[in-house]
C-alpha cells in the first residue's frame, strides 16, 4: 500500500516540492568540518540505485535543492506569485507589464566538473522544458503565460519574453521555475534543428502539429537520458546510490560553497511512513518533510533528542467535491445541508490533527491568505458551523424526505452518499470514514469506496464516475491557480488563447457540472469561470475584488465543502545542525536543500 499522506501529493501538486532535507548523524564526514546531513525525500519513497542523475526522471537520483537546481526558488508568498530566492539566477528583472524577464546568472557559479554555468546552459534547459510541458514553455497553442522568445544576451544573461496575446501574471514564475542542466553534458538530447522545430510548432496546420508531436516525443528521450556521471551546479553532487541510501558530497564549485555547512548529504531509503517515523523517533534524520503520523507516534517523535518541529502555511486545502450532474447534488440546498451536517473539527481531529486545521468556512482559499485577500469580509461569509437543525432545514428546502429517520430523495427513493478516496491516502480515508459516521448518525446513508491509486482516482473522478470525492483546492499563491480548482477545467471552463470557454457537464473534462452562471446574494449574477479567467492577467490589487466575488460565490454555491487547510509540518533536529527556518517561514515551502544552499543551516557547535 502506498502510504504517503495525501499531503505529500498536495505539496507536489502545489509545486511546493517539500523535498526532504535531513538531519545529520553524529559521525564526522571524511571531508571534516561540516559533517553528514541525513534526510529523506518525502515525495519519493524508495531509492533506485540504477536511476540516472536526471532531474526530469521521476525516479532519478537528482534531489531538488541539493544536486538539482532551478533558476530560482519560488517563495510561494501568500498573494504575490512572483517572489523568489536566488538559485542559478543571482537576480532578475521583470518588465512592469510582465512582458519579459531578464535573468542574470550567479557570476561565480560552476558545475561540479569545473565548467562555468552559462546562459547557454539556461537556453538548453528552456529547450528541454518545452519537451516536458512547462507553464511558461508550453507548446500548446494559445496557452496562457507562454514564452514567445528566448534570447541569450551575454554569457551570464538571458531574456525571455512573454507572448502577450494571452498573458499571465505569473509568467516570471513559470520562467524561473525551470531546472537547469549542463549544456556540455546534456547538449545531445535536443536535435540541432530544435529551435526551428519550436518555431514551426507555433503555427497552425499539419506541419505545426507534427512539430509539436516531435517535441513532445523528445520528452521521453530526455526522461530516460542518463549522464555518465552527475554534473551539478547545486551545493551537492551525487557520489553513489544503493538500495539503502543515496550519498551526495559537497560541490566545491558551488557559488556559495563556503556557506554550505554539511560536507555530505545522505538520503535514506524508505517504503512507508512507518519507516520515517522510526527514523525520526531514533533521531536519525536532520530533516524530513511532512509525514502524516498518528498522535502517539507524533508524541514519540517530539520526545526524540533534538527534535524540532516547524510549522507553516501550506498553500492547499482539501474539500469534498460534488458531481453536480448527479442527483441530489445538483441542488445547492443538499450541498449546504451536508456542509452544516459535517463537523469539520471532528473530521480533522480524527484524520489529520497535525497536518491540518479545520477550514473556517468554504471560501475556496486557504484561511491564511484568505485573510489577506478578503480581509474583514472573510468573517461575513457563512461559516457553515456544525448545526443539525440547519441541515434539516436545507434538506427540506431541497425537497428531500425523512422516512424512519433516514433521508431519501424527493421521490422517496433511497439516497446514499458515496465518497471516493485513493487507497493509501490514510488521512483522506480516515476523514471520509468519520464523515460517513457523522452523516449516518444523522440519517444520511453514506459509504466510503477506495480506488487503487491516485492517478486512477484522478482519471475516474474526471470521467464523472463518482458522486463525491476529496479534491485539493486553494492551490496558491497565484489567484488564478487558487480558483481554477473550483471554476476551471474540472467545472467546465477552459482558457484557450486568452478566451474562456465553457463545456457542458460531462464534456471536455467538466465533471463538477456546476451552473455556468450563478446568482449570488449580495453579488448578483456571476460567471465564476470568466471571473477566474480574469485573475490570470490581474495584479494583486485588481485581483482583490474578483477574489472576494469568487469567495462569496464559492461560499454560497458550494461546489466543494472545504474541510481542512493543510499545515506544512517539517521535522528537523537541532542535535547536529541549527539555523532552521522560523515557524511560519516561507522557506518551509522549499526543499531543505535550498535552506542549506542559501547558507542558513549551520553546524551545531
Amino acid at each position, binding site marked *: *500500500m*502506498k*502510504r504517503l499522506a495525501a499531503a505529500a501529493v498536495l505539496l507536489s501538486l502545489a509545486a511546493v516540492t517539500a523535498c526532504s532535507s535531513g538531519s545529520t548523524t553524529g559521525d564526522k564526514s571524511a571531508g571534516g568540518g561540516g559533517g553528514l546531513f541525513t534526510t529523506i525525500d518525502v515525495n519519493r519513497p524508495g531509492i533506485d540505485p540504477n536511476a540516472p542523475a536526471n532531474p526530469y526522471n521521476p525516479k532519478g537520483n537528482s534531489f531538488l535543492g541539493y544536486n538539482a537546481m532551478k533558476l530560482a526558488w519560488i517563495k510561494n508568498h501568500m498573494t504575490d506569485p512572483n517572489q523568489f530566492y536566488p538559485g542559478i539566477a543571482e537576480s532578475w528583472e521583470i518588465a512592469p507589464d510582465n512582458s519579459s524577464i531578464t535573468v542574470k546568472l550567479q557570476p561565480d557559479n560552476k558545475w561540479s566538473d569545473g565548467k562555468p554555468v552559462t546562459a547557454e546552459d539556461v537556453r538548453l534547459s528552456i529547450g528541454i522544458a518545452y519537451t516536458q510541458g512547462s507553464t511558461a514553455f508550453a507548446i500548446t497553442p494559445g496557452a496562457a503565460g507562454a514564452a514567445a522568445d528566448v534570447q541569450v544576451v551575454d554569457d551570464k544573461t538571458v531574456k525571455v519574453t512573454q507572448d502577450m496575446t494571452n498573458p499571465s501574471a505569473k509568467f516570471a514564475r513559470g520562467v524561473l521555475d525551470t531546472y537547469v542542466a549542463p549544456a556540455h553534458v546534456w547538449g545531445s538530447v535536443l536535435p540541432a534543428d530544435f529551435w526551428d522545430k519550436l518555431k514551426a510548432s507555433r503555427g497552425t496546420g499539419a506541419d505545426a502539429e507534427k512539430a509539436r508531436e516531435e517535441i513532445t516525443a523528445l520528452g521521453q528521450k530526455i526522461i530516460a537520458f542518463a549522464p555518465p556521471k552527475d554534473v551539478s551546479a547545486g551545493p551537492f553532487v551525487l557520489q553513489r546510490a544503493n538500495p539503502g541510501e543515496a550519498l551526495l558530497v559537497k560541490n566545491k564549485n558551488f557559488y556559495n560553497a563556503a556557506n554550505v555547512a554539511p560536507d555530505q548529504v545522505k538520503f535514506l531509503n524508505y517504503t*512507508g*511512513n*512507518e519507516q520515517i*517515523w*522510526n527514523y525520526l*523517533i531514533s533521531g536519525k534524520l536532520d530533516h524530513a518533510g511532512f509525514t502524516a*503520523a*498518528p*498522535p*502517539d*507516534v507524533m*508524541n*514519540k517523535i517530539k520526545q526524540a533528542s533534538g527534535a524540532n518541529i516547524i510549522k507553516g502555511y501550506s498553500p492547499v486545502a482539501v474539500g469534498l467535491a460534488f458531481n453536480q450532474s448527479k442527483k441530489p447534488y445538483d441542488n445547492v440546498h443538499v450541498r449546504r445541508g451536508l456542509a452544516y451536517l459535517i463537523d469539520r473539527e*471532528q473530521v480533522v*481531529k*480524527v484524520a489529520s490533527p497535525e497536518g491540518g486545521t479545520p477550514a473556517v468556512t468554504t471560501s475556496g482559499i486557504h484561511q491564511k491568505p484568505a485573510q489577506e485577500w478578503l480581509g474583514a469580509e472573510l468573517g461575513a461569509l457563512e461559516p457553515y458551523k456544525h448545526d443539525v437543525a440547519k441541515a434539516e432545514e436545507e434538506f427540506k428546502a431541497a425537497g428531500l424526505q425523512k422516512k424512519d429517520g433516514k433521508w431519501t430523495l424527493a421521490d422517496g427513493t433511497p439516497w446514499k452518499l458515496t465518497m471516493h*478516496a485513493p*487507497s*493509501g491516502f*490514510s488521512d483522506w*480515508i*480516515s476523514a471520509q*470514514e*468519520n464523515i*460517513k*459516521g457523522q452523516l*449516518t*448518525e444523522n440519517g444520511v446513508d453514506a459509504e*466510503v*469506496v*477506495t*480506488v*487503487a491509486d491516485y492517478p486512477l482516482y484522478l482519471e475516474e473522478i474526471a470521467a464523472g464516475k463518482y458522486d463525491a470525492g476529496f479534491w485539493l483546492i486553494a492551490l496558491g499563491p497565484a489567484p488564478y491557480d487558487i480558483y481554477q480548482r473550483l471554476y476551471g477545467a474540472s467545472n467546465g471552463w477552459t482558457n484557450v488563447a486568452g478566451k474562456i470557454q465553457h463545456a457542458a457537464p460531462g464534456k471536455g473534462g467538466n465533471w463538477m457540472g456546476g451552473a455556468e452562471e450563478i446568482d449570488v446574494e449580495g453579488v448578483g449574477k456571476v460567471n465564476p469561470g470568466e471571473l477566474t479567467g480574469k485573475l490570470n492577467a490581474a495584479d494583486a490589487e485588481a485581483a482583490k475584488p474578483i477574489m472576494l466575488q469568487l469567495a462569496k460565490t464559492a461560499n454560497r454555491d458550494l461546489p466543494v465543502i472545504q474541510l481542512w487547510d493543510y499545515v506544512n509540518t517539517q521535522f528537523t533536529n537541532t542535535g547536529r545542525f541549527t539555523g532552521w527556518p522560523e515557524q511560519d517561514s516561507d522557506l518551509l515551502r522549499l526543499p531543505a536543500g535550498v535552506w542549506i544552499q542559501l547558507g542558513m543551516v549551520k553546524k551545531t557547535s
Partner: protein
Amino acid sequence: MSSAILETGGTAAAMRRNFWRGVWRVMRRKPSRLIGAVIVLGFAFMGVFGPMFHPELLPRDPDRIYAPMSAEHWFGTDGQGRDVLAQVVTGSRYVLLSALVTAVITVVLGTAIGLFSGFKRGRWDTVLMRLTDMKLTIPGLPLLLVLSTVWSFGSAVEMGLVLGLLGWGGVARAVRAQTLSLRERGFIEAARGLGLPTTHIVGRELLPSMAPYIAMNMLIAVTGAVYAQVGLFFLGVLPYEADNWGVMLNLSVFGGGALTTTAALPYMLAPLLAILLFTLGIVLVVDAMDEIFNPRLREE
C-alpha cells in the same frame, strides 16, 4: 427383500453409531482436539450470528481514539474510536464465508479433476494434468495483485471464487495420485470384475477411501484462504472495508503505527489473534480427523 433392506439400514445405523463413538474416543484422548473443535465451532457461530449482535454502523467516540484495553473495550478502539473487538466479530463473516467458498471450490474442483484424471488415465489424464501443471506454475499472489486492479472483490463469494479457482491444482494432483494407487487395489479390481458401473466404483469405492484426505485438505484450504485474503487487504490492494481483518491490520500498522508505538497495538493484535486462534482450531481438528480416519494412528 424388505428384510434385507432393513438389515442393511440397521447395519448402516450401527456403523454410524460406532463412527461417532470412535470420534468421541479420539476427541477425549487429547482434550486439545476438543478445544480445537470448540474453537472452529465458535468461529462458525461468530461468522453466522456475530454481526447480528452489533449495529451496522458501530458506535464511535472521536474523543477516544486508539483507547487502551479496558473492560469496556477489550481490545481498545481504532482510529475512529470504535470498539476493535466488535470489528473483529463483524468482520469475521466476510473472512470465514469467503474462506469456506474457497475451500469448497478448491476441493470440489481438485477432487473432480484428480479423480477423473486418475481413473480415466490416457489422453484425458495428459490434458488435465498439463492444465494442472500450467495452473500450478502461475504464482498466486502476483496474479491476485493484478486481478485486484480490475476486480474489487466486493462480496465474500467473489473473493472465495477467485481464491478457489487459483487453489485447486495441488488437490487435483494429490487426488490423482491417490486414485492411481487405489485403482490397482484388489477391491477396485473386484468391483470392476463384478461389472459394477463406473459411477458406483468412483462414488462408492474410491471416494470414501479418499474422503478423510479430502476433508483435511478442505480444512487446510480454509486457513490458506484466510491468509490469502487477509494478506491482500493488508497490502491495501483491495478496496477498503472498515471491519475487514486485513484492513484492520493495515490501518493499525500504517495508520496507527502499531509497530512503532503501543497505542494501536491492541488494534493490530485483535485480528492477528483471531487468525491465530482460528488456525489453531483447524490444526487441532485436522489432527483429530487424521486419527479418526486412519485406524493405524489410533493409540488404543
